């Protein structure tokens, strides 16, 4: 990330006018703290750099960039900053430059100077902290600053962690989880009270997540201990700038929560109007060049493989130095990798990189990339963020990007150089995706961005934070409340909810007060301060910190049999010898393996594997050399939903004949025929088509709201049709459309009533009670809130099979006996945003009120064809579970008759 550009690529600011290099600060502490001189100009308040820095830049023929200098001068004034700078603009150095300048004079105090934490750097990725440490050490060493720079991640050995706690470095690079752990340790206040600056990298990726909730709460705690610290947020892509400023700064806790320090930092006062004073923007780099693959091949109606485009993509890769081929799911990654190798006549070095692969394997790929040994890497979001792995000159996106911000982030991976345009090629995998890719291309060129909206802080995260605080410095509940609502995420948290969350942490928060004697946190009767009940409860908490709840994973291992192998020609030994687990290929979700029977084949790590069975936490496999077509993993959960912003643009494009001119002829014709055979809806309308086919009756609607929201819609609509006596049999949701089919004609249904907003009342309620997605959402909340432990002291790694109880059972009991429990409320709130996307369904129903147009057709329309092609893969879940059992039972019945 840290890259210093040669002078040629960036004009040196203002040198001729001010000649400041000779007048630069001498490097003593006094001169650093002296007010910096500014250059008079419209926007240029450029401070002077102290001489070692000035010389260091000059020696390399470089010049500090205006935004870097701006951050230095703002830091001098004690101001916090949100820096928005495109990839390659050296924003990480910009974030650290003020700290380095402040720390430089300390060198004179000698190597035995006191250990005080000056700057805390937080990144969403472990790997990024290491990378930044390395890049930061280069200038620090070359300038002989004597600054202590260290990382602290899950990989840091305990001895070093202990040493760090006693003797903190000047600059500590770490992750949100490690920060939470530090806060949950004794003497946290002493550790943090000298803190001057917090740098948060890739802030846009953290803020809208549960990790962001925990981080925001942790930052509020830091503010109590080090009230004067400044915050610097770094980001390349920001849609909601003001929201992010509010997130970064929060507001001042009310006076009663003022803490010890008297010092007040103007920048940390209530969020300034408009956020404009807080934001520093580097000029945008060169505009990216984005092409949409206009394939000569027939563009498929449906599917997500883009198999048709593979030969053309291969030709493109041949002309490129290094291409990153982004796909949206791991299954797609595996498939694309296979397909590329199938046509790889020149045996180009093409590699695979995704989150399930063994870490060692991934590191190998990364090293090969950095060494320039690869021509293409097929990857998932694992390579979205952060690190430069080599000279990528082209980004290929297979399938629609689903959101503009993600697309911009990915495109930024190509040509990490500021003034040269990045090149990207979008390869849509079906006709609707052509529209989506075009819309995304237009949006990026206009500089329009979407992005995940900021969330309301989760109560599960709050519970974890409360426990963490109690494990560290005992807290006063009034003060902690003031602190919590000073964050943007929890600004509107009612006191009563806060109190209930404390009770959740203490006793589980049940109406039946049976656990009052087993409190996890207790209140001192004299001081009223809360603390953890005992050391073992605190230890248990520290082992379970964090908001990343991964699905239960199994190790995928190649298996072989032990014992002497029969020589060729000799009769086979009696019975097979026992299986031995061998080399680890990576990890795979337990639920995926559960869906397979031994003998089934699947694609993993670029190979076709046959499952032999599962032993403890290993999925044992062999290579299936005889197989051509594996059962491809479906990893349904890993898909990103189409962003609201992009969906809106797609709906407009459908209706805008002018903008369609750029579309491939096949797609234009497809829309034209739709117009003739049915209708193309206006952007604010929703089209519903009903038609018979093959003895069944179909209802297809086109909300363009993404698969998750439409899946929820599908469930609810199915329930309503059931009540209307239409005998619905199944439904299918794609990214763009949702189809229900049944045994009765659907043409006469009152659509306004069918799609009425009251759907989100009782229907939703009763479905949620049984939904497996709701159960897994609850399970995650329960883990984060500390009701269910992931890790138990002294135990080895657990998987679902070894856990002594199932969170599903707990959900069922809680739902039945205490439906208003605070954790069920938290899970419900999550479901609204997460896998069930209820919030979006609500917005859709409101949007289409009075705007539904209906066509009762005798045939399938062109728009309906894609979803019809995907049909038959999905049934109604709850019923299907029982059907599996009934099938098996009917075998028995047959055997007995």
């Amino acid at each position, binding site marked *: 990330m840290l890259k210093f550009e040669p002078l040629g690529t960036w004009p040196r600011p203002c040198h001729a006018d001010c000649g400041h290099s000779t007048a630069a600060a001498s490097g003593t502490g006094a001169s650093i703290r002296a007010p910096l001189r500014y250059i008079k100009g419209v926007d240029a308040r450029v401070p002077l750099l102290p001489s070692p820095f000035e010389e260091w830049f000059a020696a390399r023929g470089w010049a500090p960039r205006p935004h870097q200098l701006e951050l230095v001068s703002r830091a001098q004034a004690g101001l916090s900053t949100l820096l928005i700078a495109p990839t390659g603009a050296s924003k990480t150095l910009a974030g650290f430059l003020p700290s380095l300048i402040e720390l430089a004079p300390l060198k004179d105090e000698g190597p035995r100077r006191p250990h005080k934490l000056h700057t805390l750097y937080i990144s969403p990725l472990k790997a990024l902290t290491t990378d930044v440490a390395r890049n930061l050490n280069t200038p620090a060493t070359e300038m002989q600053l004597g600054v202590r720079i260290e990382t602290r991640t899950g990989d840091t050995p305990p001895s070093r962690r202990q040493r760090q706690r006693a003797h903190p470095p000047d600059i500590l690079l770490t992750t949100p989880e490690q920060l939470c752990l530090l806060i949950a340790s004794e003497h946290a206040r002493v550790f943090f009270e000298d803190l001057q600056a917090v740098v948060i990298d890739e802030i846009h990726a953290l803020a809208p997540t549960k990790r962001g909730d925990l981080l925001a709460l942790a930052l509020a705690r830091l503010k109590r201990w080090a009230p004067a610290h400044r915050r610097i947020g770094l980001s390349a892509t920001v849609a909601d700038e003001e929201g992010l400023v509010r997130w970064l700064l929060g507001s001042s806790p009310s006076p009663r929560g003022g803490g010890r320090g008297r010092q007040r930092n103007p920048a940390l006062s209530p969020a300034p109007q408009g956020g404009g004073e807080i934001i520093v923007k580097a000029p945008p780099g060169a505009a990216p060049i984005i092409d949409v693959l206009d394939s000569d091949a027939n563009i498929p109606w449906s599917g997500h493989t883009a198999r048709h485009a593979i030969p053309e993509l291969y030709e493109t890769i041949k002309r490129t130095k290094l291409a990153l081929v982004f796909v949206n799911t791991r299954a797609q990654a595996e498939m694309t990798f296979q397909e590329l190798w199938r046509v790889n006549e020149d045996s180009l070095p093409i590699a695979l990189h995704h989150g399930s692969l063994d870490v060692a394997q991934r590191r190998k790929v990364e090293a090969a990339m950095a060494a320039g040994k690869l021509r293409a890497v097929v990857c998932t979001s694992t390579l979205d963020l952060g690190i430069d792995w080599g000279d990528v000159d082209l980004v290929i996106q297979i399938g629609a990007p689903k959101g503009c911000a993600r697309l911009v982030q990915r495109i930024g991976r190509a040509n990490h150089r500021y003034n040269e345009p990045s090149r990207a090629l979008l390869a849509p995998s079906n006709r609707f995706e052509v529209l989506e890719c075009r819309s995304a291309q237009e949006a990026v060129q206009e500089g329009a961005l979407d992005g995940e909206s900021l969330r309301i802080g989760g109560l599960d995260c709050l519970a974890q934070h409360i426990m963490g605080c109690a494990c560290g410095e005992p807290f006063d509940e009034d003060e902690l409340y003031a602190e919590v609502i000073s964050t943007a995420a929890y600004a509107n948290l009612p006191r009563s909810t806060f109190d209930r969350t404390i009770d959740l942490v203490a*006793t589980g928060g049940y109406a039946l007060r049976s656990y009052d004697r087993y409190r996890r946190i207790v209140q001192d009767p004299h001081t009223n301060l809360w603390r953890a009940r005992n050391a073992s409860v605190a230890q248990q908490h520290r082992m379970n910190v964090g908001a990343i709840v991964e699905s239960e994973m199994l190790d995928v291992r190649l298996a072989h049999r032990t014992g002497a192998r029969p020589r060729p020609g000799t009769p086979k030994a009696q019975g097979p010898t026992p*299986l031995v687990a061998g080399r680890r290929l990576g990890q795979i979700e337990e639920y995926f393996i*559960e869906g397979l029977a*031994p003998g089934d084949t699947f694609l993993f790590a670029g190979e076709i594997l046959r499952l032999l069975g599962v032993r403890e936490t290993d999925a044992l496999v062999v290579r299936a050399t005889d197989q051509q077509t594996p059962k491809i993993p479906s990893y349904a959960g890993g898909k990103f939903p189409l962003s609201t912003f992009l969906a809106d643009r797609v709906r407009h494009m459908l209706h805008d004949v002018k903008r369609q001119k750029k579309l491939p002829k096949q797609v234009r014709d497809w829309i034209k025929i739709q117009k003739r055979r049915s209708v193309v809806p206006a952007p604010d309308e929703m089209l519903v088509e009903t038609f018979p086919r093959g003895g069944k009756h179909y209802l297809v609607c086109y909300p363009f709201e993404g698969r998750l929201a439409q899946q929820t819609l599908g469930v609810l609509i199915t329930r309503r049709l059931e009540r209307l006596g239409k005998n619905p049999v199944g439904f299918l949701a794609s990214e763009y459309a949702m189809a229900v089919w049944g045994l009765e004609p659907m043409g006469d249904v009152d659509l306004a009533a069918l799609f009425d907003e009251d759907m989100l009342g009782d229907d939703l309620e009763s479905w949620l009670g049984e939904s497996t997605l709701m159960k897994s959402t609850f399970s995650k909340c329960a883990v984060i809130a500390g009701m269910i432990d992931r890790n138990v002291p002294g135990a080895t790694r657990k998987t679902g*099979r070894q856990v002594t109880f199932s969170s599903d059972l707990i959900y069922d009991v809680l739902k039945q006996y*205490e439906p208003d429990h605070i954790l069920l409320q938290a899970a419900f709130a999550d479901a609204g945003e997460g896998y069930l996307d209820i919030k979006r369904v609500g917005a859709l129903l409101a949007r289409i009120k009075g705007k539904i147009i209906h066509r009762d057709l005798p045939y399938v329309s062109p728009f309906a064809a894609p979803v019809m092609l995907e049909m038959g893969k999905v049934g109604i879940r709850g019923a299907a579970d029982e059907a599996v059992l009934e099938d098996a*039972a009917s075998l*028995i019945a047959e*055997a007995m008759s």
Partner: protein
Amino acid sequence: MPLLSQPAPKPERPRRKAVAVAPVRAVPPMAIVGDSVEMRLGHTLVTALPDGALWVAESKTLIVSDIHFEKGSSFALRGQMLPPYDTHAALLKLTDLMLRLQPDIIVSLGDSFHDSGGPARMDARDRELLRLLMSRCDWVWVEGNHDGRAPETLGGKFHEVLHVGSLVLRHEPTESAAPGEIAGHMHPCARVVGRGRSVRRRCFATDGARLVMPAFGTYTGGLNVCHEAFANIFPGGATALVLGKDRVLPAPNERLVGD
């Protein structure tokens, strides 16, 4: 009630060491009656009920196993605040069964409490309900490995092994026991495959001669019947009587897979 023929002799088959696939074996004779499954164990007709209880009609005996009362509070002691309704939920299930079947004898086949401190932690409301249930029939606690003799303090009879007619009831199944043994302890679960997916549920495991009960408790997890621990009890393989949503469904072992 339909009468069943004697179980077929067990075919002698070597136990496969292969991973987690139950050996194939003939399904013991059984009949689906309403929501339950009837079969003969030794000479006694027993009925596997969808709640995971076993009904022995000839002696009007209701058997449940591994209730693990007070598992929730046991976890709360160690800082995991699971909902404190598990004991009550199990008691309500028992109440319902008693009202329907009017048993003369109820046998709790061991691990009635999650730990020996369980009876002391039980709250007043639940204790009262349990006392009421116990007053309506002969109540037998069988010794378990989790709770030992702790339930004895609540009254009722206490046995290490109980004989009911030709049936032998004990908590832990013994290897190479005679036909007619009913045990618990193992918490059998079955993963049934079909339609390209799999479903995991609690189950009874039986080879027609012996039977292992599912756990009755609210929060009790389970061990897959394909696990080799079951091979020691059922060397010829077992059939799973799977607890569906509201009925018992037998699943032949070629449809069962390991976890």
